[in-house]
């Protein structure tokens, strides 16, 4: 058996396009998933039982069902149910936004709950409303503690986006499949994209470790 990377490298721009699309799906899912996660967390923390119940159900449902099933559902089933035109990109962004929002919700909830009750009281005592307390006092402290868990989850999200290749979105995984068929060089193609993912994710996780250590040094606790 002989390694031959040349055939693959000549089509490297295809892989780069895939990489860009991978980052695009990840970025969009983060963009929608994070605010949605905060909304779910606040709902779940609400003392209004129906609201917290619904939020808890959504969170648990999306945490306990496989992302690939969710993706298939949004891609194949949803368009029939509500008559929308579904593209692989939209299906992917919808799926991963909601899926990761369920995980972000738990991080937000953990972060908010980790803040000492006295902080709510201090804010309340000077006349702040719930929203003011949350925005000015609680979240600025909670978010700092959540950063490591948040980054870890974002990396998981990046890895999960490989699933979009199964509904023919041209991410890095999909492009690799195409290229492997075209060049008859699956060993080289899949090894190269494994390496590309590795470098990307390794760099992100090193940054995340560095941030975590800095936060630990500054005396900030973190939540998982």
């Amino acid at each position, binding site marked *: 058996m002989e390694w031959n990377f040349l055939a693959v490298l000549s089509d490297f721009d295809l892989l780069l396009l895939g990489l860009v699309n991978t980052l695009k799906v990840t970025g969009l899912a983060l963009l929608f998933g994070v605010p949605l996660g905060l909304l779910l967390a606040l709902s779940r923390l609400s003392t209004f039982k129906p609201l917290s119940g619904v939020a808890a159900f959504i969170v648990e449902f999306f945490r306990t069902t496989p992302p690939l099933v969710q993706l298939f559902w949004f891609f194949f089933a949803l368009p029939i149910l509500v008559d929308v035109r579904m593209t692989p990109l939209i299906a992917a962004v919808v799926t991963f936004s909601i899926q990761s929002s369920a995980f972000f919700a738990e991080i937000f909830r953990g972060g908010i709950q980790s803040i*000492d009750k006295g902080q709510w*009281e*201090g804010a309340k*005592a000077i006349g702040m409303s719930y929203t003011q307390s949350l925005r000015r006092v609680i979240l*600025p402290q909670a978010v700092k503690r959540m950063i490591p868990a948040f980054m870890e989850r974002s990396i998981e999200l990046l890895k999960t986006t490989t699933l979009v290749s199964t509904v023919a979105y041209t991410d890095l995984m999909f492009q690799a499949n195409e290229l492997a068929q075209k060049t008859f060089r699956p060993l080289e193609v899949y090894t190269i994209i494994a390496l590309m993912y590795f470098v990307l994710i390794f760099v992100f996780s090193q940054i995340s470790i560095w941030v975590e250590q800095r936060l630990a040094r500054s*005396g900030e606790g973190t939540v998982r």
Partner: protein
Amino acid sequence: MSEIIRIENLHKSFGDLQVLKGIDLTVNAGETVVILGSSGSGKSTMLRCVNFMEVPSDGRIYLKGDMIGTERNGRMQYREAELCALRARIGMVFQHFNLFPHMTVLENVMEGQVIVLGRGKAEAKDKAMAQLNRVGLAEKAEEYPARLSGGQKQRVAIARALAMDPEVMLFDEVTSALDPELVGEVLKTMRQLAEEGMTMLCVTHELGFAYHVAHRVLFLNNGAILEDGEPQTVLKAPKTDRMREFLDGHSLFKLPD
């Protein structure tokens, strides 16, 4: 003397536990009232009901003659906005300071003025510096709370409350979490406030402070006011056995003869 706070028939329960069983109290402008009582007597709960940190189970509370909340079908209802506005008029200082660790001392004292009262930054800063001066901590304005001693933190917390120009101040065991050598500086600040004519309700274990500074001492037991009078009377010639027992438990405190 004009009335600032009036409490009528205040009840508070947590689940099955009745903590306050009908409190009636009127506090006049300029009065310093010290509330004594053993733990579980309901003294902190009573204080926390005054600014609705705890919502009363029953009863009425009036600030300068205006009843808080609206009555509907015999039940009191409170809107969040009304309670926020009320709390902005009543200062509160806690046992554990509850300073905001992500803000500097100055930002802590400015926060409520800017966010709640809507004051401009410049005005809020001037007010904040004036209050920090008053508690003797102007030079710590740019520090973060983590760098202050317990006594300094508590004085900042007092400045934070004062900066809102409160009509009355509530002190909830503000020296209980402090090392003994830091208690004095906080009590001194409180005494100075009392002498300047601030209306104050203080839950504390500092009998010396009660004796020397308070105009009036209350003794709470089992959710009801058992003693209410001038410190000389309540602390030296209490009417009830329960109060005498309580004072015996504080044998370290020597009242002047």
